[in-house]
């Protein structure tokens, strides 16, 4: 064992170029796909295409962040996809109710958001307590809360997407930060310049959807949380060795509960984002497999289901890789069904690379 460990250590110092490549292979792969699709995809290489890829990936990014924390601790959260739906449905129905009761739009939206997030946190709390206190395997505990989330959200919406919402949700959710009209030189923040008529909107160059701010802030926050804080350090420690963490005096129970609450918080937030982007409270459909998509992205980002490793930005790259692949294949005229195979193959490549260079990550 000692010899092997020494050999690996030696390998690390020698193979630094390899290590950088292997450690960030998903990133390089992303760059490669972008280059390839720029040639094959019609209008793929365009500012607004990249903007919309990321804009539409907001919810997936949030779910992947959630899953990153959980997976680093060595767990898995199967409930995130349906917690997203629960949050969207709960907040939408609250907004609908309050708005119909003549509350002001901002007030009903605000209360709706709070209700949606609260419902999500409840799921995480239940799962977290099950896992941390009663040692229920995360797979089962979150499968349980997933069932409860499904049941409750269908109770709330009865299988109907929830409409009648306060106006302007989608305007906020899909707004851009900067609008420029090259022809007239007019520009403004957060709304089209007053001099530009609605039908001229096509001539506008719109830069940075508002979701970019959200993504940027959250990626930064979560990156900081994981990288620079005690909370993050303990998250890795728990994933590395639960035993060591307990003996080092980490309150692992509380920590795990917090992890699952954080996970469902992010899932709940994704539900709110979905509500703002789509304008209706949609429950999650069964074929969506949002949680599996998020887990896949995190793994592509180099995390291990055994726990102990994973990085927020790498998970984000994982999401973008899958989304770019989907978008690029579509714009290149490839049938949607091939996407499943492509994703499967890429996953295998990811894990085999991970296995070949286990200590480089």
């Amino acid at each position, binding site marked *: *064992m*000692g010899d092997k460990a020494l050999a690996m*250590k030696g390998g690390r110092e020698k193979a630094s170029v390899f290590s950088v490549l292997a450690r960030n292979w998903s990133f390089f792969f992303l760059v490669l796909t972008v280059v390839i699709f720029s040639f094959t995809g019609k209008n793929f290489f365009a500012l607004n295409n990249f903007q919309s890829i990321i804009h539409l990936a907001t919810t997936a990014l949030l779910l992947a962040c959630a899953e990153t924390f959980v997976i680093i601790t060595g767990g898995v959260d199967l409930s995130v996809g349906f917690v997203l739906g629960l949050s969207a449905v709960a907040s939408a129905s609250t907004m609908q109710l309050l708005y119909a009761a003549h509350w002001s739009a901002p007030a009903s939206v605000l209360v709706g958001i709070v209700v949606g997030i609260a419902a999500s946190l409840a799921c995480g709390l239940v799962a977290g307590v099950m896992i941390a206190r009663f040692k229920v395997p995360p797979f089962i505990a979150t499968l349980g809360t997933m069932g409860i989330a499904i049941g409750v959200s269908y109770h709330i919406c009865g299988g109907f997407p929830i409409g009648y919402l306060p106006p302007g949700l989608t305007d906020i959710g899909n707004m851009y930060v900067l609008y420029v009209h090259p022809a007239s030189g007019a520009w403004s923040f957060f709304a089209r310049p007053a001099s530009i008529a609605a039908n001229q909107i096509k001539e506008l160059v719109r830069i940075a959807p508002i979701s970019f701010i959200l993504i940027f802030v959250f990626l930064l926050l979560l990156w900081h949380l994981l990288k620079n804080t005690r909370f993050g350090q*303990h998250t890795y420690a728990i994933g590395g060795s639960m035993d*060591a963490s307990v*003996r080092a005096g980490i309150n692992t129970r509380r920590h795990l509960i917090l992890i699952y609450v954080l996970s469902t918080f992010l899932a709940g937030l994704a539900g709110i984002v979905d509500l703002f982007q789509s304008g209706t409270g949609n429950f999650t459909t069964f074929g969506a497999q949002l949680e599996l998509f998020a887990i896949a992205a995190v793994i592509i980002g180099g995390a291990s289901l055994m726990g*102990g490793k994973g990085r927020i930005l790498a998970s984000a790259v994982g999401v973008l890789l899958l989304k770019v692949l989907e978008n690029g294949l579509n714009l290149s005229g490839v049938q949607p069904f091939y996407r499943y195979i492509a994703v499967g193959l890429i996953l295998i490549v990811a894990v085999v690379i991970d296995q070949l260079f286990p*200590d480089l990550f």
Partner: protein
Amino acid sequence: MGYVLEVRNITKRFGGLVAVNDVSMGVQAGEVVGLLGDNGAGKSTLIKVISGVYKADAGKILFMDKEVQIDSPMDALAMGIETIYQDLALAENLNTPANIFLGREKMKKALGFLNVLDHAYMQKESSKILEKLDILIPSLRNRIRALSGGQRQAVAISRSIYWDAKFLIMDEPTAALGVAEQKKVISTINLLKSHGIGIIVISHQMHDIFQVADRMIIMRRGEKVAELVTKNTNADEVVSLIVGAETVTK
């Protein structure tokens, strides 16, 4: 008198089974006591009582001559009673400084308001303590996974020492190590001894115990059957005590 740690009349039962029966013992500062016994003799249970994993059914624990209550591993750690388990309890996915500071990370203010981990400080302190214990680890940045068994042992010891252990319990410190590494561990224990730390070593390796221990305590079926001074005894006597051929009370 003069013990760093003393236990008096400790009894621990599991259901009908008496795992530790009325055991008393003590360890002085700068002394190494070897705890010996066959499997199931109650060694592990006794040290788990001391390190706070189990709560004794009867008896008391004195630390620095004061009676103390140890209800959890945290209590023991807070007093300066550190345990190095056979599995070392290291987070293999983290590097050396992260493990030494695990649970007690040093923070600093970044940008004047953000509380962040002070990696530089922890790295510096870690190399200091390793130097103090005369331990060489190629790169502190390497994850524990990439270290050898002896190096891991060293990290675990450094962690205890850094956090001011006054009393150290080592469970099979030399098991699963190569010969050279075993020697290194023995010399580290001797170094610790010279720093005035009280140590209990559990080991099946009779040879090692004879090398480091000042005294030996032998347990059988939950009872303390003998307490010997190392230089006054020999391996045959110890073995016969362990397997129960004769009972010596001294």
